[in-house]
């Protein structure tokens, strides 16, 4: 740490670390195991929130930071998993997807309308459904097909089990965004310039 940081950089650093920590907290909440080695966790909610509240760039960085900590061996994934081994497990597609999905969610959030708190929440719901659900699940399915050699239709079927739970998380994400929009009216959702 020799170089000076600008106000914007120090801001980004704190928020990126905060959302990486949020992912870790959600991983410490007990998980529910499903067959095929893919657990239900709260962590995809963290992905949606990072995208909506931080925007594409910083959301992506927050997820990368979290994944780096996991790869370094900290047991931060749901159920206390960690280490490089998890990146070769059947659910590795979802892990890599976290970073990209946060980016996609953030980019969508930036584009969607944010006039009133209610409209912002509706936009957050739409962005989480597309980025945190559809995109993340597509990555997960790709992982199941490539790593566990599962045929595509079966991987789709296995993945569908998670969709209802993740829809609930999209609603939760919208509720949190609504609260933040009311409490901090000038919060730059989706990384918008103020």
């Amino acid at each position: 740490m020799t170089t000076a940081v600008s106000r914007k950089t120090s801001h980004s650093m704190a928020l990126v670390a905060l959302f990486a920590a949020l992912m870790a907290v959600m991983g410490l909440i007990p998980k529910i195991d499903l067959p095929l080695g893919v657990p239900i966790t709260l962590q995809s909610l963290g992905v949606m929130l990072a995208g909506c509240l931080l925007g594409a760039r910083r959301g992506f960085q927050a997820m990368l930071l979290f994944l780096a900590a996991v790869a370094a061996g900290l047991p931060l994934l749901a159920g206390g998993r960690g280490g490089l081994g998890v990146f070769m497990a059947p659910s590795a597609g979802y892990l890599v997807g976290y970073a990209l999905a946060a980016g996609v969610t953030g980019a969508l959030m930036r584009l969607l309308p944010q006039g009133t708190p209610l409209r912002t929440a509706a936009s957050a719901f739409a962005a989480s459904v597309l980025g945190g659900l559809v995109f993340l699940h597509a990555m997960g399915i790709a992982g199941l097909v490539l790593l566990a050699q599962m045929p595509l239709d079966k991987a789709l079927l296995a993945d569908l089990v998670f969709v209802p739970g993740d829809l609930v998380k999209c609603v939760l994400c919208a509720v949190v965004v609504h609260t933040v929009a009311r409490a901090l009216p000038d919060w730059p959702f989706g990384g918008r310039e103020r």
Partner: protein
Amino acid sequence: MGSLYSEHLTWLHRWPAGRKLACMALLGTLLFLLSAPWALALAALACALLWRSLGPATRVARRLMVSVLAAALLVAVFHLWMGRPDVAAVSALRLACASTLGVALTVSTRPTDLLLVLDALLAPLARLGLQPGRVSLQLALMLRFTEHFFVQWKRLDEAHRLRTGRPGGLRLIAPLTVQMLQRAQRVADALYARLGE
């Protein structure tokens, strides 16, 4: 919050973290290139021997390994049920091998040593504007925030109990989010005060 690192020193502990990481990357890639069941069976045998050779150091990761093996078994059963015994053997063996390698690295290497390797690997990126020192600082910040989340939650929960006599539950999510975002702003200000231009 502990890591999976084991204090039981083994021969693998004496290897430098960088070498272990390089071997892991190489062997991991090799595993995905192999597709003959007999070759993977040999690899699995080698992995089992590796696991054996680490002795008591693997104890911390035993539960993790059992769950990985159970997952591998489920994948195998699934493929058998689909009538593809060859795919069943290949995918289950590959999963088991890759996970053993990952766990062997994790139990024998301190997270800080891995971070140092990461720092060294990221060093060339400094010229592109990404600073390895900053990555380490952010990791430290992240761990501190994780702890703070729990402290803050407990404080909000206690306040709620005092007012209503009931635990706060999910109602606390909204105030917690807002408080943590504001806390991050203050941390950002502090960082700027220490490191700012």
